């Protein structure tokens, strides 16, 4: 009884807003939302959702807090950057203080083909706070496959764009942008154009507003448009979203093409990952790892007939960061010992990750789930050298071996 009275008090101004009312607020309290990315957009979106009182918020992010995030990523502070906390962890800690009534699940993980389905398995809506086209297309596939709305948002410079894509009503992101992942090349990002905080908040606010409409049963109020906005050279433009493309596998009624079948086949690993996730769900501690990696190792994830080292490297959002998967069996403590031994300086060490500075000054970040980031390497070839020199079991100890490539 007391709890209900408190909720009434907490949400009183939101309930007074007629389109939401008591019914809308109750729906919100029963809703589950996935926020992908806990960076600028993601942290803001998560905050909107938690303050508004969703029942459950699942937050997933692959990055950690750095000083250069603080001018726009409103949930984080200097202590988080100093401690190099994973964004998902730091955000969850703040959000729990904001609203203890919301069930918050935070995952330190890279969202990929193998864990996306599991992450979206039991949510009502997905909010996009990612920083790359590839993950967005993946989220689109998953959302349209499951029939849940995806609220896209992107920012760069002083503006951005957003749209709520509703399966059944609109075409999917893949249809909007083209069948193939055209890559992020040419797509402006915070690294190419810079970014100002007001641009982030504008886009996040618009995303959050659409999410609130969808979650409180105000679907008729949804904009149904693709909106671009600029906070500096002020402009707002919106265009009607197109209907589903009939031939599309995701938003229409298309048959899988050969290529799409291969994609689907790759997703078989979902089932098991989903089990893993629901297993974790029963626990009380929510700051789980969710690497999406099979316990057997990485082989399943590799492209058929190609296990070259280069395939393991993923460039993160053009910000001089490369990501790769290590053997998950090696603990952070063991990595700490190995890296120190080979001359690295440990610059951060917490239960989620280890950060070390190489002799040459690049940074290696190893997450507990076995994922590594190499920062400051400049080129992929150099990042591979660092991998071979510091992180690969077979080549690590032969440090005097002449380096390959440039």
């Amino acid at each position, binding site marked *: 009884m007391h709890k209900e009275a408190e909720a009434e008090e907490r949400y009183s101004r939101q309930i007074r807003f007629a389109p939401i009312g008591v019914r809308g607020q109750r729906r919100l309290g029963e809703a589950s939302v996935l926020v992908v990315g806990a960076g600028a957009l993601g942290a803001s979106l998560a905050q909107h959702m938690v303050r508004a009182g969703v029942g459950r918020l699942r937050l997933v992010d692959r990055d950690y807090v750095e000083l250069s995030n603080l001018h726009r990523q409103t949930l984080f502070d200097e202590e988080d950057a100093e401690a190099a906390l994973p964004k998902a962890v730091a955000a969850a800690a703040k959000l729990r203080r904001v609203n203890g009534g919301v069930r918050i699940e935070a995952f330190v993980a890279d969202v990929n083909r193998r864990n996306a389905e599991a992450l979206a398995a039991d949510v009502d809506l997905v909010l996009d706070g990612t920083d*790359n086209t590839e993950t967005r297309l993946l989220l689109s596939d998953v959302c349209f496959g499951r029939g849940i709305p995806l609220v896209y948002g*992107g920012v760069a410079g002083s503006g*951005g764009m957003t749209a709520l894509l509703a399966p059944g009503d609109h075409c999917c992101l893949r249809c909007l942008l083209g069948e193939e992942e055209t890559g992020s090349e040419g797509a402006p*990002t*915070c690294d*190419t154009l810079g970014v100002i905080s007001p641009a982030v908040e504008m886009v996040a606010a618009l995303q959050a507003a659409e999410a609130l409409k969808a979650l409180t049963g105000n679907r008729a109020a949804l904009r149904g448009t*693709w909106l671009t906005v600029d906070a500096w050279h002020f402009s707002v*433009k919106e265009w009607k979203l197109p209907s589903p493309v009939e031939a599309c596998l995701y938003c229409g009624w298309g048959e899988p093409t050969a290529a799409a079948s291969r994609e689907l086949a790759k997703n078989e690993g979902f089932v098991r990952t989903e089990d893993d996730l629901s297993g974790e769900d029963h626990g009380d501690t929510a700051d789980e790892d969710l690497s999406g990696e099979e316990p057997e190792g990485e082989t399943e994830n590799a492209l058929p007939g190609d296990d070259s080292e280069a395939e393991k490297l993923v460039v993160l959002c053009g910000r001089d960061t490369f990501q790769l998967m290590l053997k998950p069996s090696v603990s952070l403590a063991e990595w700490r010992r190995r890296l120190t031994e080979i001359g690295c300086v440990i610059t951060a060490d917490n239960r989620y990750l280890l950060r070390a500075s190489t002799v040459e000054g690049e940074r290696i970040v190893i997450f507990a789930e076995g994922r590594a980031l190499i920062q400051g390497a400049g080129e992929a070839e150099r990042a591979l050298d660092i991998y071979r020199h510091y992180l690969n079991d077979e080549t690590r100890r032969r440090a005097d071996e002449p380096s390959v490539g440039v």
Partner: protein
Amino acid sequence: MSRPLEFKLYVITGENYHPGRSMAKVMEAALRGGADIVQLRDKESSKRELIEKAKRLKELTAKYGVPLIVNDHPDIALAADADGVHLGQDDLPIEAARELLGPRRIIGISTHRIEQARAAERAGADYIGVGPVYPTGTKPGRQAVTTAYVAQAAAEIRIPFVAIGGITEANAEEVLRAGARRLCAVSAIVGHADPESVCRNLLEKINAWSLGEQAAVPASLPISVALTLPERRNVREIALTVNGRSERTQAATLLELAAQYKLEGRSVVADLDGAVVPRQLWGETPLQGGCSVEFVHFVGGG
């Protein structure tokens, strides 16, 4: 001239390059391929023969809505009702040619250094030739001016200039990179078994450079596009608005328009008259005169 001279691909006759094929046949193939200005050059024939050739070519070029230029001889240009003359540095001065031809006919002149280009511009030439960029059999013994002069002309000269001399499909990119936006070829086109496809390929390269420059602007996209094709009677051209600017295009579909801005490989959202068009449907989305198109780069940051 009633309107500014606009062309991209200049073709000059060279009968010695296509023995066994008639000039009319070869030039028609070039026109089909998109050549949009033609010059009759023939240093061998008598004036009487030249007039006949010029008249036949005029008929042909008129059919394609393309101007015909006569090399060296204003009198023949007048007699055959050609659209203009092209002069060498040692021919009649521009002012004298203008007196003969009047204000409406085109006068072009070959230049080999920037001083000549400046003088031609001052004297009221409608366009200049810049070359020979590479050593060429058409002008044996002439020192090549290289792309350095092309770059100079691009930086300084305001009237249309056309790069000429030894230009082929293989080196066209280099000339365009130096700043040329109009190319002229003789042997590479008329000496080829398939002048039509050579022209098409050259034009494609020219278009890529002309439009690529504008499409490279990131945030608010296109921008002014020099869709400066001459009025071609056999090609449909429409007026439209692209990202807020009035443009003309021969593109029939949204996909063709996107290709003109070199947007094929990029993450771009297209809006036509207030509604987003899925990328897959660009190819089957026709453009109507007066329509409004916006292309915006998909924003990736978060």
